[in-house]
Structure formats: structure tokens, C-alpha cells
């Protein structure tokens, strides 16, 4: 599967800065989309590609920090690089707590910005991969029958076939069959692999 082309979003109310940053990032061969305000960005369709946001903290209307909060609330986890003219400590702390990728002061050094963009895209790629894998695992686990699910839980809990048979009031042979189905449907290569997948699924649900 070929990865879709990554996109960098630039949101700054200052047209000249917007264009400058856009030009700079395009020069290293990345796709850039610009927005003059946070509200304008919110109207745009979320991309199905690795992406990151370059966001001015101080903007009229919805501020950069407000937008960050809104995205978090909407479960849109895209790495954000903040640009600020005067970054004070409380503001930086708040942004970092909400998961900002980077906090750069204007005028920003081009290398710092490009590095930050690369790091942010790499992170988003990782996140996307993780999300895709999870989706895949979830689909496999969802295909299990209720009985197979029960067997899965006990297998993962470390019980032997005989113990599971006792627990569920079935013959050991039946359990063996269910277990084989589980391994097949979840495409688990080993018991350890099955346990790892089950753990990942559990962790993702807890989040």
C-alpha cells in the first residue's frame, strides 16, 4: 500500500508569513495548505494522509491554543507546531500539556521549522500506522463468535485447555477446535502474539 502524500497545514493571520512558510516548505517538496484563521481551518475536511499543523498562537478570533483544545475535544490528534512572537512560560506549558509537538518563537529559523515539520510528520505517520493496525486487529477480533470470545479471554488469562474445558463445561476437544479458530481468525502467529494483540486492543479502549 503506497502511503498518501503528507500535508502541512499553515494557519497564520499574517499573509506574508503564511506565504513565506508555505514557500519554504514547498521548497523541500512537501504539500502545503494555508488558512488565514482557525475557523477557516475547522471548515476544511480532515485529510487521509500524514499531516501536521503550523499554528500561530496569537490570532484574532479563535487563538492557536483554542484551536488545539477544539481538535483534542474532537479526537483529532494531529501534531501541532506553535509559532509565537512572545512565548510566555504558562502559555508554553499549557500547549505542551495538550500535546504540542514544538513551540518556536518568531522569527523562526528555517532549519528549526523544517526539522520540526519532519519530526511532526514522522510522528503522525507512526500514529496513523498504529491506528491502522489497531483497526485491523479490532476487525479480526470482532469476527470471533461469542463462544470463541469466551475461550479467547481464558486463553489470554493463561489457562490450559483442560482448565478452560472445566470452566466452560465443554470437552477439551471442543475447546481445542475453538482455540484453533481463534488463532486463525486473529492471524496470531503464536500465543504470545495473541496476548500482545489483545493487550493493545485493551489499552486502546482504555484511552
Amino acid at each position, binding site marked *: 500500500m503506497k502511503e498518501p502524500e503528507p500535508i502541512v497545514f499553515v494557519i497564520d493571520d*499574517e499573509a*506574508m*508569513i503564511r*506565504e*513565506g*512558510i508555505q*514557500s*519554504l516548505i*514547498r*521548497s*523541500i517538496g512537501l504539500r502545503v495548505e494555508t488558512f488565514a484563521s482557525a475557523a477557516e481551518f475547522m471548515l476544511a475536511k480532515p485529510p487521509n494522509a500524514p499531516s501536521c499543523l503550523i499554528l500561530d498562537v*496569537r490570532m484574532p478570533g479563535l487563538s492557536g491554543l483554542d484551536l488545539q483544545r477544539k481538535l483534542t475535544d474532537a479526537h483529532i490528534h494531529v501534531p501541532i507546531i506553535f*509559532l509565537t*512572537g*512572545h512565548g510566555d512560560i504558562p502559555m508554553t506549558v499549557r500547549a505542551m500539556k495538550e500535546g504540542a509537538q514544538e513551540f518556536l518563537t*518568531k*522569527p*523562526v*529559523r*528555517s532549519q528549526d521549522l523544517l526539522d520540526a515539520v519532519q519530526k511532526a510528520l514522522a510522528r503522525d505517520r507512526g500514529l496513523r500506522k498504529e491506528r491502522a493496525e489497531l483497526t485491523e486487529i479490532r476487525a479480526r477480533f470482532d469476527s470471533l463468535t461469542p463462544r470463541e470470545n469466551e475461550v479467547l479471554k481464558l486463553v489470554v488469562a493463561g489457562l490450559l485447555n483442560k482448565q478452560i474445558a472445566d470452566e466452560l463445561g465443554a470437552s477439551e476437544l471442543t475447546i481445542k477446535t475453538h482455540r484453533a479458530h481463534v488463532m486463525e481468525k486473529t492471524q496470531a502467529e503464536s500465543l504470545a502474539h495473541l496476548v500482545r494483540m489483545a493487550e493493545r486492543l485493551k489499552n486502546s479502549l482504555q484511552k
Partner: protein
Amino acid sequence: MQTSRAAPSKLPSLSRYGIAITLVAVALFLSLALRVPFGNPFWFFFPVAVIAGTWFGGRGPGWVAVGLSTVAVLYYFIPPLHSFAVKPADVPFFLTFVACEAVANWLISWQRETEDSLRRSRDELEARVAERTVELQTANEALLNRIEEQRRTEEVLQRTRSELARVARITTIGELTASIAHEVNQPLAAVVANADACVAWLALQSPDLAEARAAAERTIQGATRASEVIARIRSMINKAAPERVQVQLNEIVEETVALADRQASRANVSVITELATDLPAVLGDRIQIQQVVLNLIMNGIEAMTGVNSRVRQLLIRSQTQDGDQVRVSIEDTGIGVSAEVMPRLFEPFFTTRSQGIGMGLPISRSIVEAHGGRLWAESAENKGSVFQFTLPSTGAPGK
């Protein structure tokens, strides 16, 4: 009782009657004694006794004296002697005597009573005046207290107001600085971003000249914007030209010292002023000059907060200099300024304090220089500093 109230003295009534009776007895004795050498009728001592009796005893005892002397005269002196009978020929004479005595008694008692009632009125009046005086005194004290209270309230209000003004001024400077910084920083950020982009397009293996050119053009735009912002700020400052009115520096110093009074006492600093009495007025902006003085005073106080080995004293002097200048010097006994720091003292944003923004001295100097004067500092480390400024005088007499 009218008679007793008419009594001239505070004597008890028994004594007053005693006096009247004694007086009549004395008159009788004298009349009898003197009858032998002088013959009849030497009984005119009786009217004297009646007059004296009335005088000292009042109306009642007076009447007793009249009665007794009438009886005595009738018995001892009107023939036939030693009898109460009167010959018809002597009746008019006797009645005249009695009438004279009665009139004397009446006149004297009337006079005494009048005098007495006058005295009573006077006493009453005096009592009332005293009462009223006390009331007035109380009211006066209350009024004085209220005036004092109001004065104190006004003082607090004044201090709060000037504190507010000071904070507002500092805040304004801070906000202005932040806003100017942002205004200038935005186009500069654009300049940097576009110049970077331009370089990046040129650095490609096959340079994209169109992109590089567009970025370079935006760089020029940004730089132009930055210089426009600066020009706008400059014209704004020029427009807000300070007013020029006659200003008495001594007044400003005194007001400012009052403003800084609280900070001074909190920092345990005694502020001493030696102001020339005949200081001519200067032409300038009152608020701005006050800002300079306040700034120098606050700096002085600040410089002494860490000093414990010597007296913390701020000495403020004003004097005429070279005939056409007025000089104010503010001398502290603070930590002083080191030789390394001295050359940077008036640089914008240079500060040795954690809370300072480093704009006080540069702003003060620019104010003084805009007024045609000079502001400079001399300092000995660990001894203190003297900040002085001169302003051209108008020659107009000061107060």
C-alpha cells in the same frame, strides 16, 4: 416665698430677723442714751435701723424692724412717755414717721430685689452661656475630628490615586512596548521566512527561479512593512508633543516626594529636601517632569533597600545654575553603580533589577532632553549615586 427669695444674702431667715431686731434694739439704746445730752426727739436712729435691717435682712425683717421701732417710739418717745397712748396733736407727726419708715423699707427692699433678680438673671445667663460653650466646644471637637478624618481619607485617596496613575503609566509603557514589539516582529518574521524560502529555492539542484523571485519580493514587502510600522510609531510620538507651561520645580519635587512617601517609609528611607527658595520656573510638561523626578526617587529608594551599614537617606536639592538653568539633584546612599554598568545605565532595556524593564532612565533622559535639559549620573560604588538634571529656566520668578 417672695421675701426669702429677695434676701440679699444667703443668711438663714432666723439670722436675718435677728439682725433686724438687734438693729432696732441698738437704735433704741442709742436714742435713749442720747436723749439726755441732746433732748427729744433723738429717735431718728430708728429709720437707719429700718434701712439697715431691710438692706441686710430683706423685706420681711425690714417690716419687723418697722413694727418694732414704731412700738419703741410710741412707748419711749411720744408723750405721754412709757405708754402706748398718743396725744391727738402728735398723731400726724407719728404717722409721718411710720410712713417714712415704711417707704424706706419698701424702697430699699425694692432696690434689693431688683438687684437680686438682675443678679439671678445674670447667673442664669452665665450658666446658660457656660452650658452653650460646652456644647459648642463638643461640637467643635467633633467637627475638628471629622475634618482630620476627612483629611486623612483624602490623603489616602490621593496616595491611592497617584499609585494608580503610576501603575497605569508603567502598564501603558509595558503594553506599548509589547505592542510595538509585536507590530515590528510580525513583518520581520515574514522577512525571515521568505528570505529562507528564497535561499531554499535557489539551493535546489535545479533552482526554481520563479519561486525564489516570489519569495524575494515578499521579503521586500515585509521589510517595507517593518519600516512603515516604525515610521508610524515615530509620527505618533511626534504628534503627542508635550505641552509647555510654566512649571515650578519645587512644587513638583514636593508633590512627588509625597507620592513616594509610602515607598520611602516602607524601605526605611528618610527623604530630605533642600529646595532653593527663589527657584525660577521652567517651561515644560508637568506630568512628564514629575515622571522623571518620581523615577529618580524610586530608583534611589530601590538602590538603598539592600543597604544596612549606613543611613538610608535620599537628599533632593534644587538650585539655580549659571543663572539660566535650574538643577535638581537626587542623592542616595545606596549600593551605587559600578564602573562597568555606568556606560550602559541609560541604554533602553538595560536593567540590573529582576522586575525592571529597563525603560525608566532612557525615558527620563529623553524627556529631559526634549525639554532642552540634561540628565546625568555620578556614582561611587558602595557609597551611593547622584542623579541630576538641568532644565533651562524661564527667568520668571518662582514661588
